[in-house]
């Protein structure tokens, strides 16, 4: 009799484990719910970067990289506002922390682009912060979508 009770308990435990496994799969789906703003996989946070300096970023934006022989403004234009190719984004007045996040993602290899991947590879945390501060401080042609009818 007691063996039957053990068997029942074992079966209940087994069923509970199965139910949990099924539930945990549902949780993975919920994590991708498009209603939540969640981060880019594998990217480190822009939190923890040193404070950026606009003047240093302005200088760095004109330095041609070893890898591409191009500077930021060679491609994104003066103050990041005149890209030489329409597929290159405008950077002037973009949120600095977003620019820093993008550069970190390129540096880490989480985001890939033939020009930007080698361009970002050599950047230090300080340089990323400086560039983000500089471009974020420039006049902008960009806007959020609030207030549109």
């Amino acid at each position, binding site marked *: 009799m007691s063996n039957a009770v053990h068997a029942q308990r074992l079966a209940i435990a087994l069923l509970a484990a199965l139910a949990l496994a099924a539930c945990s799969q549902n949780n993975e789906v919920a994590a*991708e719910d498009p209603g939540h703003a969640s981060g*880019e996989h594998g990217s480190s946070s822009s939190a923890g970067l040193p404070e950026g300096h606009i003047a240093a970023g302005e200088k760095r934006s004109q330095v041609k990289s070893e890898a591409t022989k191009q500077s930021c403004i060679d491609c994104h234009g003066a103050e990041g506002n005149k890209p030489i190719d329409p597929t290159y984004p405008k950077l002037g007045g*973009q949120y600095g922390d*977003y620019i820093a996040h993008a550069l970190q993602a390129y540096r880490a290899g989480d985001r890939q682009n033939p020009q930007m991947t080698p361009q970002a590879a050599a950047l230090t945390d300080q340089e990323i912060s400086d560039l983000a501060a500089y471009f974020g401080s420039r006049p902008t042609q960009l*806007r*959020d*979508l609030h207030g*549109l009818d």
Partner: protein
Amino acid sequence: MMRPLPLAACLALAAALSVAVVTAQTPASPATAPAEAKPAEAAPTPATAAPAAPATPVGNPQAGRTLAYTCQGCHGVEGYKNAYPSFHVPRIGGQSAEYLAQALTEYKKGNRKHPTMQAQAQSFSDQDIADLSAYLSSVK
């Protein structure tokens, strides 16, 4: 005396349940990947879609304006921040149509990774992406 019966019943139940779990997963997997579901639905009409597919679709800003309501949830909230990692959701209004279309296409293909943006982009056709890009690049 009573032992074998409950044991067998429990094992049978567990087996049946595990089969149920496995079969439940099979139809569930397309539902978790909306990108796969949509082309499958569109598959019956490739003849009409095929001529438009090779050329880059021309964006219609009016159609894009309607589609862009969904973007407002994050990009329309001033100062709205992404969580983990924390950064401002980018300003996308006024960015070029070419850049926006490229970004959405990269998200759609999974080359650029962001759970929300990938899910959004996967729900858009190439025409939708062209329409959205035409609209978003035009806002002042």
